[in-house]
């Protein structure tokens, strides 16, 4: 067992996953992740550079991944805003990389030192055009480590950018946690020389092989809409086929992507739904209520996007009370609302800190 901070767990997870390139720009509360990667990467033959801004940091991470390295950046809401165009580029070029977004409170500069959960919609929808990427959110200290590895694995497996959403509370807190387990590490599937002339033809697998540099494959990766050869095209039909595939490669593989935790779902018509640092309070409140004889179900979401719609539907089906616990004014509630029918959706919000378990418990027991 080690006594580690959330930042240390993320950095350790990234290095364990094989991350060998980090580009960043200082911002509270994610700067420590950058500093830890600056310390950790040289010893494993990796590359680190503090860039001139978050736009450059995300661009350089994408360039590093194009060159074959598992790469990442870490930032917070304002920086994530600046990175959005390049994250969209990575979805279009199918370049894997990981963006850690450690959330803080409020729009604009807000309060940099106060953690929150207000960038869920930004992570899911922040870019222009029909697009989809993965948004993962660890809800415990051990998951800060294991889901960072998962973020790299899924990025490589699906050739997609992944936003690892966490917050100022979790990156700064410390806990005893074990990181000794062994994890499977996934590397991207490379393009075969025989397919170099049609590098985006996937023959049903939906995820094309990644082109290596310096081997004469001459593959063009173009942010313009492109055909199977990678050539830019204004064709509506080819554009539609590209956009449909980019979404389908994630949605059709939802079984590999979807992570959640549930308990007591068949025992109760009432359920608590939460994620991230709020989930720690939600778990404790559910345990306390159960100890007092109240049956209550619990859903902790970990893959925040895309959703496994059939799982969401079956977990939330027939629930008469859905208690949503988050540090935002209804972002998680909005996300799950399509799956909640005829029920009473109750928001428990605490904007600048995880809600106290007692507060959630009182809502569960109708004591408020």
């Amino acid at each position, binding site marked *: 067992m080690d006594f580690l901070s959330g930042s240390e767990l993320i950095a350790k997870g990234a290095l364990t996953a094989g991350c*060998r*390139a980090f*580009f960043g720009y200082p911002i509270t509360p994610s700067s420590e992740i950058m500093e830890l990667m600056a310390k950790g990467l040289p010893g494993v033959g990796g*590359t680190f*550079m503090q*860039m*001139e*801004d978050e*736009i*450059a*940091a995300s*661009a*350089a*991470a*994408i*360039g*590093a*991944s*194009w*060159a*074959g*390295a598992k*790469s990442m950046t870490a930032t917070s809401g304002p920086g994530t805003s600046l990175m959005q*165009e*390049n994250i969209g*580029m990575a979805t279009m*070029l199918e370049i894997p990389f990981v963006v850690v977004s450690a959330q803080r409170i409020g729009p604009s500069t807000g309060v940099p030192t106060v953690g929150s959960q207000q960038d869920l919609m930004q992570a899911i929808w922040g870019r222009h055009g029909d697009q989809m990427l993965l948004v993962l959110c660890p809800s415990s200290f051990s998951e800060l480590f294991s889901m960072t590895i998962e973020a790299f694995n899924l990025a490589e497996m699906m050739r997609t950018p992944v936003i690892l959403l966490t917050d100022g509370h979790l990156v700064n807190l410390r806990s005893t946690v074990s990181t000794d387990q062994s994890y499977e590490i996934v590397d991207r599937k490379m393009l075969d020389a025989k397919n170099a002339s049609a590098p985006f033809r996937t023959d049903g697998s939906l995820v094309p092989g990644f*082109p290596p*540099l*310096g*081997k*004469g*494959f*001459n*593959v*063009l*990766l*173009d*942010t*313009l809409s492109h055909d199977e050869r990678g*050539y*830019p095209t204004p064709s509506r039909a080819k554009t539609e086929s590209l956009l449909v595939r980019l979404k389908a490669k994630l949605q059709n593989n939802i079984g590999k992507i979807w992570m959640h935790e549930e308990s007591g779902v068949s025992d109760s018509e009432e359920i608590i739904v939460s994620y991230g640092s709020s989930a720690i309070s939600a778990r404790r409140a559910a345990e306390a209520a159960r100890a007092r004889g109240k049956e209550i179900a619990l859903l902790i979401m970990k893959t925040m996007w895309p959703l496994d719609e059939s799982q969401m539907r079956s977990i939330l089906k027939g629930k008469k009370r859905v208690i949503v616990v988050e540090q935002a004014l209804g972002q998680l509630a909005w996300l799950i609302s399509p799956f909640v029918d005829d029920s009473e959706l109750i928001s428990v919000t605490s904007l600048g800190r995880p809600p106290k378990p007692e507060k959630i418990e009182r809502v569960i027991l109708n004591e408020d």
Partner: protein
Amino acid sequence: MKTDSSPLRYLREDRLPTIWCTGCGNGAVMSAFLGAVEDAKLDMRKIAVVSGIGCSGRIGGYLKADSIHVTHGRALPVALGTKLVRPDLTVVAFMGDGDAYSIGGNHLLHAARRGDDVKAFVINNMVFGMTGGQQSPTTPTSLIEGSPLARHARPLDGPMLCATVGASYAARWPAAHFAELRESMKTALTTPGFCLVEALSQCPVQFGRRVTRNLPELMKWIESMTIRVDEALSRRSTGGKLLMGEFTKEEGGLRPGLGELIGG
């Protein structure tokens, strides 16, 4: 007919003809680059091409090379990330004046300051061509339309900026000076550190609207707005003209006297 020495072997022939307008300088710059690659005896397989957005950004899509066409203004940081992971490759970035000097200006400043080992080739046609001919950071003040406030702007000198903050190599040539442009591109490709070569290029359609659409006249007009670095140094004056030539001395850094020339 394609021979062994034909530059066509470096191009994706199935993508030709290019989208560029008749008389555009982009083709000459691309050709000068291919000549420079030959002169430098580089293997195209060991060159990674990054390009930005705009007419110039299309070059990466025509070259038969590992290439990536990225977001507007961000070619340089993408190129840096690539180079740091694959130092065995020569990483080049093709940009326009909008890419390099407007939206990507901050990246240019820092790439030159840090000495990123990236070769930047800027096609400066002094106008936003693809979007309809709007003014760019290099549009000559006398040609800027609009309010007195807009006409107060002075054009940005990219090679001078880069040389001043520490580029290993910086040069400018009109696209019509093909041999010198090719030679400078070769120097850039073989000089370690951040190197920038600006081709002062003609856009007969959009920039020509402000001057003349007659191609030879336009190319002469561009020639007339420049003065060779050596001549300006010996006259101790640019005469209000744009410098052409090499802005750095052999070991890098600004050539002596150039700073005073520009300041005066």
